[in-house]
């Protein structure tokens, strides 16, 4: 029977060829949309590693040139933190280089087991863990215990703007306390206990493992993460960053103005900008989702258009083949046989188109073009788009199938 389907498809190879190409391209569109959707849904379900409820960020600008004022900055930071801790509205005060949804990113890369391994790096103060409720799965977060060590972390800027003056001092091995995320710990040490070990950057020493820290938010891919310690009073180098504070339940935005006045009272010439992290999250999510939704809507319309077109072409095929179908009915073929023939041919065409599409899609992981997409997500995308394409083409051939079943042998044979 399959042989017969294929034969009929071959007999009308030109028009069927075009339909195959259409199915092939539609499949590629559907596959990319579904794989990306699955990718983002998968990311969304993973733990974020922090909680931004009631967390505000305070940007501090001293209006002084970066060079030669390290002590002024450090003193200012300490004074501001002290002033804020006294306020009843504020529960926790911390300082971080780039907190949740901040756009600065810094990465470090080393060779590990013959492979280049990248880790995102960040710096945070002792209190950040409480501000952002970062879950710790092993070891501990930074504390006063670490005061004996020198607090300088590796920070290699990869953004468009690199900060000057951070000359890499020669640090003794294992002198910088760092926490890393579970992903990174698993990569480096497998099932061994990572606490007390040195990560790739041997000047650091791991004191704790956090669940994760997906700074870029819910849709971002999980990766390797390393956070080193910042002390507000550190004067050895410029500690860029912002304050992150957790306010008490029921504190309203009106407190922002009041807080700024208080901060301006502490540091007369500095300027401050307060935002809730939730705002940053919302605008970030919007920026990421709008193009995704736009792409999804366009793809949906494209597929709808293809479905309509396919139905039209099949319909035309059936009405053109009235004679052939009528002959088959006259020779004893049932209406179901005819309908099965229509569906079968469509199935054969779809299979050829999808086979070509799958061959192209399989090249992607083989050529390592989509390394950031997990194999599970890729397979889900592939399987679901294959199923959807078959369903779509099946639905498109239902109406033409019915039309074919309706053809009466007598009427068909009479027509010329």
């Amino acid at each position, binding site marked *: 029977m399959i042989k017969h389907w294929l034969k009929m498809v071959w007999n009308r190879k*030109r028009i069927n060829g*075009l339909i195959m190409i*259409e199915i092939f391209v539609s499949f590629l569109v559907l596959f990319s949309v579904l794989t990306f959707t699955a990718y983002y849904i998968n990311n969304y379900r993973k733990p974020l590693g922090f909680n931004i409820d009631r967390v505000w960020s305070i940007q501090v600008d001293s209006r002084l040139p970066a060079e030669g004022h390290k002590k002024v900055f450090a003193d200012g930071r300490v004074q501001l933190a002290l002033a804020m801790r006294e306020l009843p509205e504020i529960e926790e005060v911390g300082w971080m280089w780039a907190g949740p949804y901040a756009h600065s990113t810094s990465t470090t890369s080393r060779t590990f087991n013959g492979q280049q391994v990248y880790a995102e790096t960040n710096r945070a103060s002792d209190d950040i863990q409480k501000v952002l409720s970062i879950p710790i799965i092993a070891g501990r977060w930074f504390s006063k215990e670490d005061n004996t060590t020198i607090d300088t972390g590796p920070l290699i800027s990869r953004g*468009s*703007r*690199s900060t000057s003056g951070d000359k890499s001092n020669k640090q003794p091995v294992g002198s910088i306390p760092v926490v890393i995320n579970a992903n990174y710990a698993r990569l480096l040490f497998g099932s061994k206990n990572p606490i007390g070990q040195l990560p790739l950057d041997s000047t650091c020493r791991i004191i704790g493992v956090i669940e994760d820290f997906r700074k870029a938010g819910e849709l971002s891919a999980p990766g390797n993460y390393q956070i080193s310690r910042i002390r507000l009073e550190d004067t050895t180098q410029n500690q860029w960053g912002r304050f992150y504070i957790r306010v008490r339940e029921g504190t309203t935005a009106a407190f922002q103005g009041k807080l700024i006045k208080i901060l301006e009272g502490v540091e007369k010439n500095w*300027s401050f*900008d307060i935002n809730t992290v939730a705002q940053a999250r919302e605008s970030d999510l919007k920026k990421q989702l709008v193009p995704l939704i736009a792409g999804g809507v366009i793809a949906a319309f494209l597929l709808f258009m293809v479905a309509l*077109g396919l139905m039209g072409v099949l319909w035309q095929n059936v009405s053109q083949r009235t004679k052939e179908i009528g002959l088959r009915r006259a020779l004893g073929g049932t209406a179901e046989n005819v309908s099965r023939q229509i569906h079968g041919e469509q199935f054969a065409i779809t299979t050829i188109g999808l086979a070509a599409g799958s061959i192209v899609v399989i090249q992607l992981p083989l050529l390592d073009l989509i390394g950031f997409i997990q194999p599970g997500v890729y397979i889900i995308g592939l399987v679901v788009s294959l199923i959807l394409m078959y369903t779509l083409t099946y639905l498109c051939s239902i109406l033409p199938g019915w039309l074919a079943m309706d053809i009466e042998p007598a009427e068909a044979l009479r027509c010329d």
Partner: protein
Amino acid sequence: MLKNYFKIALKVILRRKFFTFISLFAISFTLVVLMVASAMLDHVLAPMPPENKQDRTLILQQAEMRGPENDMTSNPGYKLLDTYMRTLPGVELTSIFSEQSIVSSYKDGYDLKPYLKRTDGEFWKILEFTFLEGGPFTNNDDRNADFVAVINKATKEKIFGDSPAVGKYIEADRQNFRVIGVVADVPIFRKIPFADIWVPLGTTPDQEYKKELLGDYKGLILARDAGDFPRIKAEFASRMKKVELPSSDFNTMKCEPGTMFDDVALEIFGNRGGHERFILMIAMFLGAFLFMLLPTINLVNINISRIIERASEIGVRKSFGASSATLIGQFLVENILITAIGGIIGFVISYVILQILTNSGLIAYAQFHLNVRIFFYAFISILSFGLLSGVYPAWKMARMHPVNALKGVVQ
């Protein structure tokens, strides 16, 4: 004869309503996407007020200091632009402006968070802002560090409501400025002119920036003629070789003036050794091509079905001596007619979508318009769409043997 073609075309369109619907849907949908996309690109790239002289303008937006161990990339600093750009010979005007930054500005205890840009007097001559009230500040204001400001309409309405703003004072970045001008809003994507408040460079609280080679500034060069671009670029490149670098860590300074298009390409793709422009162009064409591929195949399929249905009509025409060229011509006319109808529908839908986008406030101060240029793009794409999807079926039809055609047999 053309009139006859139109009559036949209308009959065909009305006969198979389902096919007509599919064709119109595909055409109008494709056009909507292409037009909305080009309106957005137009919004970012095309010369429109205040950037009326965009074709003669070069921008300096990135500088790079290189050394054996360290590279530093940033916006150019004030000193670099002041020393090496402002003194360029043979150009009409040059201007320096800071990257706009969000500052605090309180109105009844609520922070408006406007974008503030610091610049000089020439800025207002290179860019032609629409002044609703007052006028711009001058180079003298910049030199004397006069605390004067030009604000945009949205900011004016937020702070002063309907009453005139000129002569009144506003607070921004903890400084007080006297408003001397109000301009129409500029969309946020127009990165050169955009800001809510413009004030003289001289009012920067700390004068340290005047010593920086890398910083947070951008330069604008208005050439007398676009033909001068290569000469200006060469002159600037030779000047960059003579820059005195701050330390022995660095040995080269790289900073190239580019057009607005180069600027956007650089923004999207980063530094790709001067090929950003071509990469952007190829990416744009490739994107449009890939997007149009599926609708085109779909239309070709539908069109073939339409002809097959009309096989006997073609057979009759052929038997009575119609040449292939005549038939191809007729079919193309029909196809272009239906594309044009789809095009009109698409145009209306695009207009509605762009209106919704403009009013949604998704992008600050955005004004998406369907102007003559976009209409032109759309017209070209409609035409090429109609021709592309019609040529293969028309050629196939014209090759039909009259006998087969009469019988309605199509291979």
